[in-house]
């Protein structure tokens, strides 16, 4: 207003033209605001505080920010790739060793979902510029300290060998017991992840770890039921 009044006084002749120009300016500004969703009153960006604390006004230019990915997140993914790889290795033994349809179906399911998840984990790591395996682990493995590099629940070399040598019902039982042990380990890994400081805060990883937890719990219960059925059948005989 003040601006316009001064202009009027100083350049009386151009008054009309200037007013029109000012109008155009105001219109253009309003249009620009409107196109970004501004009302008569511009929207506010605020951030509440903890209860009892005030709500802060943030600059309108505020952009999203996320917590950092932690070393524990990266190690969880690297470790889980190795962990999952053994599950796939175990399911690969099934077809040559048992005719049990339920075990075969279970194996197909586990193999499919774990292979899928391995892909996901690799992509997660690579897109963050991280190696898909932990150098320290690899070193232990190369040095022959295989058991030191194992993730929780993973079958030892002896257990794997026993599984390879088994056939029929013996294989079924060893496989189910081994896979329950293996899945229990994954639950421990998830628990460890969420108990590590600053870990599990990234949405994608949070979702994935949560899925691993609920999915493997379900499979453990299913496998326990299969084991129980085998035992009760045997007793009936």
């Amino acid at each position, binding site marked *: 207003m003040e601006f316009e009044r001064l202009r009027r006084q100083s350049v009386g002749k151009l008054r009309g033209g200037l007013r029109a120009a000012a109008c155009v300016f105001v219109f253009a500004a309003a249009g620009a605001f409107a196109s970004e*969703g501004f009302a008569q009153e511009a929207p506010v960006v605020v951030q509440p505080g903890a209860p009892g604390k005030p709500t802060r006004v943030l600059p309108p230019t505020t952009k999203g920010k996320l917590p950092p990915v932690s070393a524990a997140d990266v190690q969880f993914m690297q470790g889980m790739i190795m962990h999952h790889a053994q599950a796939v290795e175990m399911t690969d033994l099934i077809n040559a060793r048992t005719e049990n349809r339920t075990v075969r179906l279970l194996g197909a399911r586990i193999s499919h979902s774990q292979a899928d998840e*391995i892909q996901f984990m690799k992509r997660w790591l690579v*897109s963050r510029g991280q190696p*898909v395996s932990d150098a320290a682990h690899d070193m232990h493995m190369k040095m022959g300290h295989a058991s030191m590099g194992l993730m929780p629940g993973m079958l030892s070399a002896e257990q794997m060998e026993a599984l390879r040598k088994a056939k029929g019902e013996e294989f079924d039982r060893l496989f189910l017991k081994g896979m329950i042990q293996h899945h229990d380990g994954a639950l421990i890994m998830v628990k460890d992840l*969420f108990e590590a400081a600053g870990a599990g805060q990234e949405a*994608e990883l949070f979702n994935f770890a949560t899925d691993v937890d609920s999915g493997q*719990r379900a499979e453990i219960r299913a496998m326990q039921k299969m084991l129980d059925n085998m035992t009760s059948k045997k007793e009936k005989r």
Partner: protein
Amino acid sequence: MNRGSMMAFRLFAGALFLSLCFAGALQAQEPPKAAGAKPEEKKAEADPFAPEPAPPLPAGMVGSDVNDPRTKLKPGLYDAEEAVKGLKPLVLLPKPGPFQLGADDPSDPKVQKTLGVLGIPNTAVIPKPFQMVMAQLAFANTDLAFKGKYLFQGNFYGVSIYDISNPAKAQLLTSMVCPGGQGDVSVHKNLMFMSVEMPNGRTDCGVDGFPPGPPPAAGVASKPGVPAPQKDRFRGVRIFDITDIRSPKQVALVQTCRGSHTHTLVVDPKDKKNVYIYVSGTSFVRQGEELAGCSDEAPEKNPNTSLFRIEVIKVPLAAPQNAKVVSSPRVFINPRTGAINGLNNGGTHGRNGLEQPADSDQCHDITVYSQVGLAAGACSGNGLLLDIKDPVNPKRLDAVNDPNYAYWHSASFSNDGKKVVFTDEWGGGMGARCRPTDPNKWGADAIFAVEDDKLRFASYYKLPAAQGATENCVAHNGSLIPVPGRDIEVQSWYQGGISVIDFTDAANPVEIAYFDRGPIDPKMLVLGGHWSAYWYNGHIYGSEIARGLDIMELTPSEHLTQNEIDAAKSVRVAELNVQNQQRIVWPAQLVVAKAYLDQLERSQALPADRIAAMRSAIQSAESSGLNPKDRATLRSFVQPLKESARTARSAVDATRLQALAGILMRPAK
């Protein structure tokens, strides 16, 4: 959004996952494969840009229609082709600045800057289209709530509040930054409630989460160091005072063991001083060191396990700061044995169609209908019917499972409380599950009749139009449209769009209107589409995950008349929290009578001459402003209508005839 255990996060993960699938450049970057890599992996790596391969249609199953106009729409973020029937889009408000990139070109500096703040170190190794995907992930729009002229849109990063006094010119008022999960939101009077489940949730709404500890010593990754209880961590339900709509104040924090994936506002008609919140937690159980009493042990080991339960929060309206958990109902209990894990999942398949479906140790969402004293729980492996006459102690009346259901996700009642529409979030909302080879009984609605406190299956409904492999699509959130005399629901299907169905006949649901856009991207699945689509006081609001807020209205069609739409618009409510279902009551206005007449004509329940006579009398009464003579004429139809109701061919028509007679007896202005 949510499935398996977390819908929203799954969407994120899904999108990322799928998008990563397409990230061809990644392949070259990948270090040599670890020993033990199997043929399955090689297959998946062959074409990392390709969408998740669709498995073949299982034997005996039928897929959706590939000839539907919605099946092949042109892609785009803001310029996608649209297919519309029986709806008119009014406006799409792009996502507000603090929650969006504001760009659809991966080379845009805004995208690069956002990747920087997301901690993506070196964008050179990431294919361009994928950079777009990653940059958008953490800011998905989610569920909606309404109060008066305000709309509340949840987001993974906070809540957006709009003024919708004039829906076609809705205005953003407030962007509230407060991350910690999908931000499921409810409003009641001066209070707003928000769900938090992720470990980055902070009591002070801070965006930085918690600092990572020092990396574990080499080779002992299985022991990531000391547990890290955080006193400032928040997982549970936040309560805000929204008296100043431009400055919500946090007044209470109610912590729970699994956090809150969703929550449901419960208003007990007998209790004017308190409201209740049912908390559905689907995430991991936090350690007891952080919140006393939390345990994720199996029920056999620990009868007080935090699994297999929901939580009930009591909120004193006069003192919301005193809100607290007052009960943890064991809704999965076996009443005979007392086992708290007493329900079994009956599904044959999980998220990807092969693996075991998740167990029933959690509810994903609960819809309460206090006026009929019932709640419908969508609880991972089961659909529950609960008696909530005592809201603090819900009792299970019935539980169902279904071989075609992967994850029981949400529920809604018909207005008479005699039907429940459940949804199955197969694929978690992040997956393309409406492809031609996806069975039309998987990832679908299941409609149940409620008879003598039992649920009886009636039919499935799935989006009839097949969608592409880059469109995340599955049944999701919807609400009733208050058309009198019919059960009509508007429902979101992510990138499958919005579908309006009539389920008056529970055995034969039919689609009567739809809206759909092409995929965000033709080559990779970019998470998007409608999280929720709800009717509120005359308009349909669609929360679009990636694009923003859609506002549209119904238009008349062969399936729906202008009178029926006007009758729906005659219903006004002060608040809408869809999972706190309120009985719809229609005003006794002539516009509602006209809707009933249209329906009786459609179902041929009355002869044409009687319908014409009533229409003419109504028209006359409307132009005279209901003068005594016209009122008398209207009354003269009442007795014959009641006669017709007694002899009507269907119960639905009988109800319509009775309701029509009631209005003509005493029409309101």
